[in-house]
């Protein structure tokens, strides 16, 4: 086992053992991120591989500033977003019915739900919702950051997020 700094240096030098260690350490964490941005496991694995490849390629540019995990996470997220950038047509404006029936900010139902079920629902989300929902609710990005990243306006990000949230609420209610 290498320490973090040593691990990074060894990975840059092309030490396959170190590369494998880095992969083993983070694959599950990043795979879960990829799952949230995709519809199928296969797709998520594709993004995971591309993302890790980018991480190894860019590793020598890492400046040891901020958390290493956070740095890698951003690469994975950007890879996932790039993956869908060409598929912008998926950014649908789905009409939501019966919104009124749902109380806003009702978090009780989520307490009982497992992450696994939520991931399944997130995977089913329309693409436009999915990215914004993931970035805002889970990754903790701000709307203005999302707008910049996805090249949309801040208000689009806000409205899409509100719709995504409601979409999730409706579909989780259905589950019950």
């Amino acid at each position, binding site marked *: 086992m290498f320490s973090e700094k040593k691990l990074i*240096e060894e990975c*840059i*030098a*092309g030490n*396959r053992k170190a*590369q*494998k260690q880095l*992969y083993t350490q983070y*694959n*599950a*964490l990043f*795979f*879960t991120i990829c*799952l*949230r941005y995709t519809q199928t*496991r296969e797709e*998520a*694995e594709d993004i*995971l*591989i591309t993302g*890790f*490849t980018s991480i*190894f*390629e860019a590793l*020598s*540019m890492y*400046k*040891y500033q901020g958390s290493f995990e956070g740095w890698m996470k951003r690469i994975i997220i950007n890879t996932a977003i790039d993956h869908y950038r060409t598929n912008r047509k998926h950014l649908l404006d789905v009409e939501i019915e019966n919104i009124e029936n749902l109380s806003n*900010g009702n*978090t009780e139902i*989520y*307490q009982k*739900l497992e*992450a*696994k079920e*939520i*991931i399944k629902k997130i995977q089913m989300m329309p693409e436009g919702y999915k990215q914004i929902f993931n970035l*805002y*609710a*889970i990754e*903790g990005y701000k709307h203005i950051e999302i707008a910049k990243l996805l090249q949309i306006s801040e208000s689009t990000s806000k409205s899409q997020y509100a719709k995504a*949230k409601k979409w999730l609420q409706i579909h989780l209610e259905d589950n019950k």
Partner: protein
Amino acid sequence: MKTDFEKHMHDIFENYSETPSPQCWSNLSNNLDKIPHHVPPTTDASSVIMQIIQSTIGKIGIGVVVVGGISATVYFTTKNQEVIKETVIQAIVEPAQIVDDINVITLTKDEKEIPLPISKATKAIPENNENTLTTKEQISIVEPQENVNYALQKESMEKIPSSSLNQSQKQTEEHSNQPINPSLDKGQTIDAPKINDASFPSELSESQTEEIIQPRFNIPNIFSPNGDNKNDFFVIENPEDVTEGHLYVYSITGKVLYENKNYHNEWDGQQLPDGIYLYIYKFIYKEREFIRKGSVTIKRK
């Protein structure tokens, strides 16, 4: 405003993970094989440059070595100043020595009179070994070639932490104003690996016959093309006598992004993203051609 909902979502996924199939690693390691292999870390930036210089012997014209971040790039120009070849050599410079600015080395040699040392040396070696030669081995092969005459000129070497190279700063600065002129090397043999000799720069300056001083003028290292009428263009403050300014702008990876054979401060950064770019500015001053090189940052906010 993050509400409880977002906080809760974040918490749910904080401690949750699923594992990908084992197939992923084998696919990834296939990809990793394709990533170009890095030169092992070196503790001295100047030794990286030396390796590059060694690998350029036998090629023609001027080699510009740019060391910045992780890569060292060599540009070759022909005698009529066209950029004909770019070679990118991956090299690792210790983080402490990574420089934001570029360091430029100009290498000139007489291609007619000098046998090509590398090709000559490799003749003696079975062909299948040729590719496996490391740079280090090449250096040792080149070393005994006594008639390798070339002048190593440098500019802005301050950032390279090699004290012996720094000593020659002043002499070579004057010297670098000369166009490619291999005749000054006649009778003087400078073996490439001896660059760290203190005697090296003085040998060069002895052969200095003519003194032409490059005009001093300001080329900015930053501008902000954001349309606010302040520093919107890359303005080179040419003195009056300077004519035929020829500007090339490169990305950090060596791609030509902008070229203007008669530059009059019209480059606005196009639609290029904020970042550092490299430029080469050639101009005529008192019927002599000069080159200025450096980096420029585009910063819109």
